[in-house]
Structure formats: structure tokens, C-alpha cells
């Protein structure tokens, strides 16, 4: 009985799911119709849960890329700046074109923005893999300079665009489902297929555990690092376009501000260890949902929305304390006490996340 209990409680999605259920419960108590999903006159799905899925989409998209980066024991702080850069790029192309409402213009704008982000992502990858700079610092450079680059593109203005096809990306619906949600689902499914149905995920994890050993075992660690940072930047650009389209404006200073923290938070809540070598995309999905639900809860409970950050801080603290080696060791001690007194503390071992 105790073993089953520990199996459940030790599952890496146990605490995140508990948190998600608790948050939803708070909402349901506060707003009885919280769980209801209706179809409005336009044939689109409508309801609080749909809002959570739509508003949480950009964070989820970035968090998926971030998961892979963190799995290689890296981190990408530049995603917020990349959001701003891609949004600025797309908006400035649409603004300067003769026909902002044509689908062709928007397609070109989006593709150019994605390509630019990919180049910047490969730049990050180069700093990390070729020059061997610590990921926090390597991506800090683009985080600092990136806002400057975005302002360079927008020339310091907030670019407001009027373009029907572009607006569709952020606030449109496909078969009643918000486009942003569809994009997030597609991204999650593609990355999951790519990394879990091929050996790619395992190779990424092996690089996270020991890059040098992986290289000697024939894993092309350098190429993999380029790949994950490039992909992360690309996904950040996708999120940036959705965010910009949703506001129909590119703001170099504020688009995607602090989103890197939300994304990292989603990954950490999802049980992916920051020490690399192990990741869970399902966990990241749950993590992103927890964050967005938390934001919604703050609204529904009637706490001033600006207080959200305090709650996020609380979540970070609780989650990291629950996952910390010290807590795990304590749990381990408690678990093994009746049988034999094992030396439970293993100080040199990194965070054990089950």
C-alpha cells in the first residue's frame, strides 16, 4: 500500500496535476460555469477553458523548444527578445508592402521573420557548441541586444498593422478552435513525434547527461546543440507572431517581456530537470496549463492581476522545493525507514526527479 502511494506521489506529473486540479477547483467554486464550453453564433468554441488554451499557446510553444534546450543542460534566455524581433520583422514587412491584406504578403512576412529567428537561434547554438560559452550567458547576449535589434527594425515605434490574414493567426479560429491553440497542438505533436518516435530525443538526453562522452560515443553533440537552439528560436518566433498578431501591433520593448521566465517555469513545473538529461513534453504541457490557469485564477478570484507574479514566485518555490534533492532524500529516508536504515543522503547526486 505504501509502495503504491509512493509510486503515485513520486510520479513526476503528480504534483503539477494536483496543482492544476486545485487551481481549476478554485475557479469552479468561484465561477460555477467555469468548465462549460459553448459554441457561439460564429460556430466557434467559447469558454474559460478555451481562453486558457488560447492564451497559454504562446507560452506552450516556447516552452516546447525550451524543454529540448534544457534537456541538453542548456537554457535559452533570448526567447522573449526573439518574440519581439520576429513580431517586429513580420509587422514591418506587412506595413511596407503595397497590399497588406493579401495572403501572399503575410506568408512572406511570416517566413522572413521565422528565417531571421532561425539565424539568430543558430548564432546562439554556435556560441554554446563551438565557443563553449555557458548557455545562460550565451543567450543573455541576445536577450540584451535582441530588444535593441527589435527596436532597430521598428525604428523605435510601435508598429500597428491592419491585415486580415495576419490578424487571423492570433485571433482566428479553425473549425471553431482558436488558431493559436491549433498551432500549439501541432508544434507539440510534431516535436513529440520527432523526438520520441526517432532516436533524436534520446540523443538530446545523452548530450544533456555528458556532452563529451556522447561525442566520444559517436553522437554529434555539436550538431544537436545547433538543432535545439535553432528550433527553440524558431518556436519563439512562431509565438512572437501569434502574440503580435493578437495585439495587431509590434512593440519592441514589451512583446514577450518575461515570457522566457514563464516558459522556463512551465518546463520546471513539468518535472524536466534543469540539470539536463531527462525531459517530458507532457510535463511541459501540464506546466504551461498550470501557469495559464494560475493567471486566470488570479483574475477570477478578484486579486489584482498585477499580483500574478507573486503567485508565480510561490509556485516556483513550492515546485522547486518539492523537487529538490534535499526533499527527495528526506522522502527516501522516510520510505526506507521500516526496513533498514540506508545511508539516504547522496550529496553528490544531482536533482533526482521521478
Amino acid at each position: 500500500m505504501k509502495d503504491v502511494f509512493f509510486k503515485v506521489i513520486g510520479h513526476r506529473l503528480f504534483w503539477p496535476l494536483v496543482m492544476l486540479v486545485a487551481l481549476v477547483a478554485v475557479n469552479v467554486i468561484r465561477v460555477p460555469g467555469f468548465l462549460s464550453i459553448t459554441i457561439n453564433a460564429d460556430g466557434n468554441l467559447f469558454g474559460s477553458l478555451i481562453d486558457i488554451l488560447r492564451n497559454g499557446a504562446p507560452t506552450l510553444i516556447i516552452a516546447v523548444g525550451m524543454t529540448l534546450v534544457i534537456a541538453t543542460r542548456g537554457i535559452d534566455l533570448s526567447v522573449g527578445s526573439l518574440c519581439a524581433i520576429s513580431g517586429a520583422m513580420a509587422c514591418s514587412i506587412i506595413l511596407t508592402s503595397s497590399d497588406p491584406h493579401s495572403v501572399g504578403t503575410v506568408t512572406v512576412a511570416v517566413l522572413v521573420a521565422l528565417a531571421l529567428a532561425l539565424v539568430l537561434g543558430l548564432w546562439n547554438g554556435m556560441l554554446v557548441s563551438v565557443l563553449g560559452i555557458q548557455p545562460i550567458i550565451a543567450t543573455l547576449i541576445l536577450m540584451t541586444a535582441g530588444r535593441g535589434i527589435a527596436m532597430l527594425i521598428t525604428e523605435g515605434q510601435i508598429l500597428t498593422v491592419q491585415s486580415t490574414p495576419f490578424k487571423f493567426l492570433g485571433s482566428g479560429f479553425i473549425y471553431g478552435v482558436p488558431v493559436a491553440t491549433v498551432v500549439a497542438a501541432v508544434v507539440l505533436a510534431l516535436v513529440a513525434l520527432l523526438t520520441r518516435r526517432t532516436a533524436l530525443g534520446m540523443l538530446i538526453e545523452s548530450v544533456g547527461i555528458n556532452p563529451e562522452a556522447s561525442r566520444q560515443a559517436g553522437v554529434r553533440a555539436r550538431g544537436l546543440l545547433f538543432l535545439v537552439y535553432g528550433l527553440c528560436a524558431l518556436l519563439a518566433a512562431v509565438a512572437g507572431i501569434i502574440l503580435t498578431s493578437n495585439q495587431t501591433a509590434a512593440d519592441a520593448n514589451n512583446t514577450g517581456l518575461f515570457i522566457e521566465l514563464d516558459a522556463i517555469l512551465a518546463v520546471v513545473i513539468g518535472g524536466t530537470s534543469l540539470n539536463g538529461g531527462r525531459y517530458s513534453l507532457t510535463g511541459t504541457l501540464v506546466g504551461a496549463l498550470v501557469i495559464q490557469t494560475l493567471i486566470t485564477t488570479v483574475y477570477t478570484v478578484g486579486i489584482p492581476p498585477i499580483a500574478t507574479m507573486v503567485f508565480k514566485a510561490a509556485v516556483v518555490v513550492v515546485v522547486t522545493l518539492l523537487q529538490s534533492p534535499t526533499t527527495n532524500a528526506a522522502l527516501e529516508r522516510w520510505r526506507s525507514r521500516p526496513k533498514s536504515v540506508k545511508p539516504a543522503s547522496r550529496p553528490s547526486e544531482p536533482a533526482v526527479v521521478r
Partner: protein
Amino acid sequence: MTTLEAPKSGVARLLERARDAFTSPKSGPVLVTAVLFIVMFVAGGVRYNGFFSATTILNLLVSYSYLLVLAIGMSFVIISGGIDLSVGAVLALSTIIAAKGLQIGMPPAVVIVLILVCTSVLGLLVGLMINVFQIQPFIATLAAMFLARGLCYIIAKESIAITDPFFTSMAQPIILGPRLSITASVIIALVVLVIAVWVLQYTRFGRTTYAIGGGEQSGTLMGLPIARTKVLVYVISGFCSGLAGLLYSFYTLSGYALTGVGGELDAISAVVIGGTLLTGGYGFVLGSALGVLVLGLIQTMITFEGTLSSWWTKIFIGALLLVFIVLQKVLTSRRA
């Protein structure tokens, strides 16, 4: 090196010593920064009228005394091999507490003590999270950043002006000579600088901080008080962020929740440009002070240039950060 070489002339020996200094991971980056600072200062003087003067330097000190204090706290953390992402938010929290506290009628002395105690306690909590629960500094300070920023918004959304006579008197310039003036903040920042230099170079605590950055396990084996020092480093960083916020509120005479967004990046940039190794173990507080001056000089030159827009500052700082990180990499890999 063999000892059978011909005796060298004084110049050759001097050159060799200079080369050794510039290529050592310990002093190399600092010297490069010093040269860079002088080159920028001279270049600015050649290019702009009235740039090459003590006024420029004193203005830099007046405008960036808060960043100097932030960078001093950050130096302790980075030398110990950690990182503190919360400093910008804690600075903002400090300005908000100052403004709100004075607004509701607290005496300035109480407000100042309150701020320094609050921010030090926050630093203590972060240090305990990192040390007791072995949470990565990056995540623990991220949480502190969220917390501090959130508290700012809860205390006051809008910017609050400070009208307290003590605070306004602190904002008054102290005239040193014709067109030369500083503020009390500059003196405070310089005192903190001197104390920090003394603590890091001449106390047990300072040496232990270097030892943690150089190799925590070796430090533990040598019986150094690693745990206590690691926690204290974050207390110092919290205290410095609080003090920096206080100086910032003297400077701007207001408290606002959005001040210091990106302040942590400026502080980290200053420390790195000042030659402190990001992996810990090497670095000088005086280097960080030099880093602050270089950052300030970039901003001043962009202001003098007039045609360049402010966003170039961020791009320049980013580029400079890159150059120095690569430089550190080159210097350390050659020695390794």
C-alpha cells in the same frame, strides 16, 4: 622556461611582464577593460567638445552610483560561482518601499532601515534555498525576482513622487569646484566599493568566496565555512540591491514598480566586462566598477552622438558582453 637565455634588457622584461599580465585570466580582462575605457574616453574627447573632462567622469558617477552598488553585490555572487537575477526587481521594490513609506508618513531613518532589512532577509531566503535545498541559484533568484516585482505592483501600481526633505537633500549636488559636483550617493557608493574591496581581498570571508568559485569541493575539504559563506553572499547581494534602490530613489526622487527592468543584466554585464569570470573564482570588485564606467561611457557617447538612437546602447552592450566573454574563454583555455 629555461634559465639559459641571455639576460634581457629592461624594456624586454617589461614587455614580457605586460604580456603576462594581459594574458592571465586573472588580470587580463580587467586590463583590457581599462585600456578600452581610456581609448573610449580619449576618442570621445577628440570627437566631442567638452567630453574630455572631469565633469564627464563625475556625471557618470552621479548617474550610475546605483549601478555601481548593484554590480558590487553581483560581483560577490558571481565570484562565488552563482548568479543573482533578482537585483533589478529588488531595486524596484526598494524604491517603492521608500516612496510608499514616506508617503504614509514614516520617518526617513525608519524607511531606510526597513528597506535594508527587507532586502537582506530576501537575500537570506534565497541563500538558504540555494544552500539547504540545493536549488540552482538561477531558479532561486528567479523566484525572488518574481516575488519582488509582484510585491512592487501590490504596494503601488503608479509612480509615487518623493517629497521628503531628507531624500530631496540627498539629491542635491555637492559642489566640488567650477562645474564639478557629485551627490551624497556617489560618496555612499564609493564607501561601499572600498568596503567590498577590503572584504574580498583581506578577510577570511573574502578568501572563502573566491575558494567557493574556484572549487567548492576543495573548499569543503579544506574545512572552509562554505555553507555560511554561500548564504552570506546572497545576503550581501540583497543588501546591495536594497541600497542601490535607495540611491536610485535619491537620484530620481520617485518610486516605481517598473524601474530596473533589465537591471540584473546591466549589473551582470558590468561585472563580466570588469573581468570577473562567470564560472567564479576570479575577479575584482574594482574591475566591476570599471565595467560600470564603461557601460556609462557608452551611454554618454551615444547621447553626445545625438543621431544614434538609444537602442544602439543595448546592441553595443550586447556586443561588448560577447567580446569579453570570448576573451575570458580564450584566456582561460590557454592557461588550462
